[in-house]
């Protein structure tokens, strides 16, 4: 059913810290690696070694330059499915392939039902759905449903592959429906925001904005180097002779 379920309390999602993300692409790579063998496998690559390489990725890391009166800075920006609370990508689906789970709010696609009409990708404002031209069906982030409930993994590995891979801990996973959860508190503390709130999709994932500029320069403990200047007098004459 593509009608949205009446939402239970649980809203699993990600919190992404734009302050600490260094744009290393580890999350995108780890995502590709896990998911090309996961729930939505394969993440087909077309012409992977050629000049027109193309393929399905669930997570893409952009880089932006944000310039304000406080100055400019580079912001690395991972973009993936936000597991919206009112996602039109689900309601537009004519086949029932797209659905939102009542139990935890994860938005998934049943690949056996998808006819590849692509309408859901038009309905997603965030570009989170990518069409697999080889298989003929739509694909998207699963929030690693095959990891987070996976009893074969150790407890600390039951997080999405992107979260596990991030070297700067810029990605956090948890229940955003529970105001006492660590992720909810992080969002409250850092003023986490929704992307394109004006469109009314109510994304579950939140983005933590970069921290304010402090105007503090980095302190350098080493002594400044002495200037190299030509010596005068006899020693200078010796120096010039020897340098010739």
């Amino acid at each position, binding site marked *: 059913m593509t009608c949205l379920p009446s939402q239970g309390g649980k809203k699993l999602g990600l919190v992404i810290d734009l302050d600490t993300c260094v744009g290393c692409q580890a999350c995108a790579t780890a995502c590709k690696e896990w998911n090309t063998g996961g729930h939505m496998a394969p993440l087909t690559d077309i012409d992977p070694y050629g000049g027109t390489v193309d393929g399905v990725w669930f997570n893409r890391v952009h880089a932006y330059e944000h310039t304000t009166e406080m100055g400019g800075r580079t912001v690395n920006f991972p973009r993936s499915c936000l597991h919206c609370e009112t996602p039109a990508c689900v309601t537009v*689906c*004519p086949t029932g392939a797209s659905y939102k789970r009542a139990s935890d709010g994860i938005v998934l696609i049943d690949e056996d039902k998808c006819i590849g*009409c692509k309408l859901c*990708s038009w*309905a997603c404002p965030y*570009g989170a759905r990518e069409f697999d031209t080889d298989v003929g069906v739509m694909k998207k982030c699963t929030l690693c449903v095959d990891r987070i409930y996976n009893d074969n993994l150790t407890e600390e590995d039951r997080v999405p592959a992107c979260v596990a891979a991030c070297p700067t801990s810029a990605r956090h996973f948890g229940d955003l429906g529970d105001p006492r959860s660590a992720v909810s508190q992080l969002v409250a503390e850092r003023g986490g925001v929704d992307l394109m709130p004006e469109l009314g999709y109510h994304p579950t994932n939140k983005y933590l904005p970069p921290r304010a500029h402090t105007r503090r320069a980095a302190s350098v403990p080493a002594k400044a180097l002495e200037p190299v200047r030509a010596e005068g007098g006899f020693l200078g004459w010796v120096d010039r002779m020897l340098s010739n």
Partner: protein
Amino acid sequence: MHPAFSVVFFTTATGAGYGLLALLGVLGGAQIIPPDFWLGFIGMGLALGLIAAGLLSSTGHLGRPERAWRAFSQWRSSWLSREGVASVATFVPAGLFCIGWVFFDRTGGWVAIAGLLAAIGAIVTVCTTGMIYASLKPIAQWHSRYTLPAYLIFSAMTGSVLLNALLQGFALGSRMLLAASMLLTLLGWGWKLATWRYNDALEIATNANTATGLVGGTVRSLEWPHTEENYLLKEMGFRIARKHSARLRQITQVLAFALPVLLLAATLALPWPFAAVLSVLAAIAQLSGMLVERWLFFAEAKHTVSLYYGR
């Protein structure tokens, strides 16, 4: 948005087909158009042929056409599913009307009712098509109050110009229908001009700031996540040069609106064989113009995902 030919052709052809079907259903059932085997055969063949060709072409757009039947299931939430249900359901009264009116020369009674139901089905189907586009919030040029009426007006317009060509061909042309075709074409022209004006002045609340959550200042794309075009850019990042779009708007206006109105006006004054030739030319010009119009409808529509790519 990428103007895929299958979808451009589909919406243009089914629009004209449903317009013609609705007019034949109402006017034929009420005996305003007299039953005549060849007239009915060609008219209904044209209407149902355009619809069927359009629907077939739209399934060509699918990644898994063999599963297309699944698209009838989610009519509670999906306009695309509703379109599928409405289009197939319309074939039932349309088929009955066709049998009664074309093959048994009957009017009134159940044939009139079937014709009326086919007309209602046609209008409902065109509405569902329009709503598929009008309901998409990420595309501001489509998510506007201009989209749904445009689909209805263009369907009525192309349907009546086709019907006029058909009746003129059988020397059954009427001044009423000619006048209606010209008025509908002028209405379509006006609506298109108003839509372009609205879209050109559109102030879209969604921008690179709200897309990234970065408040204030400017947000400039430094680096894409990939070096080559991906699905998102191919499907939704389509861009058309301003000068091409201006030229194509002119072509649309000439072919779809100006030329048909002039040809139809000339038809008013001319006797049979000439009137028929001009009417057919008007229909051909208009349908080709509408293909350009529909191509532009896609090419000029901007999806919010392009903001992430600095486009």
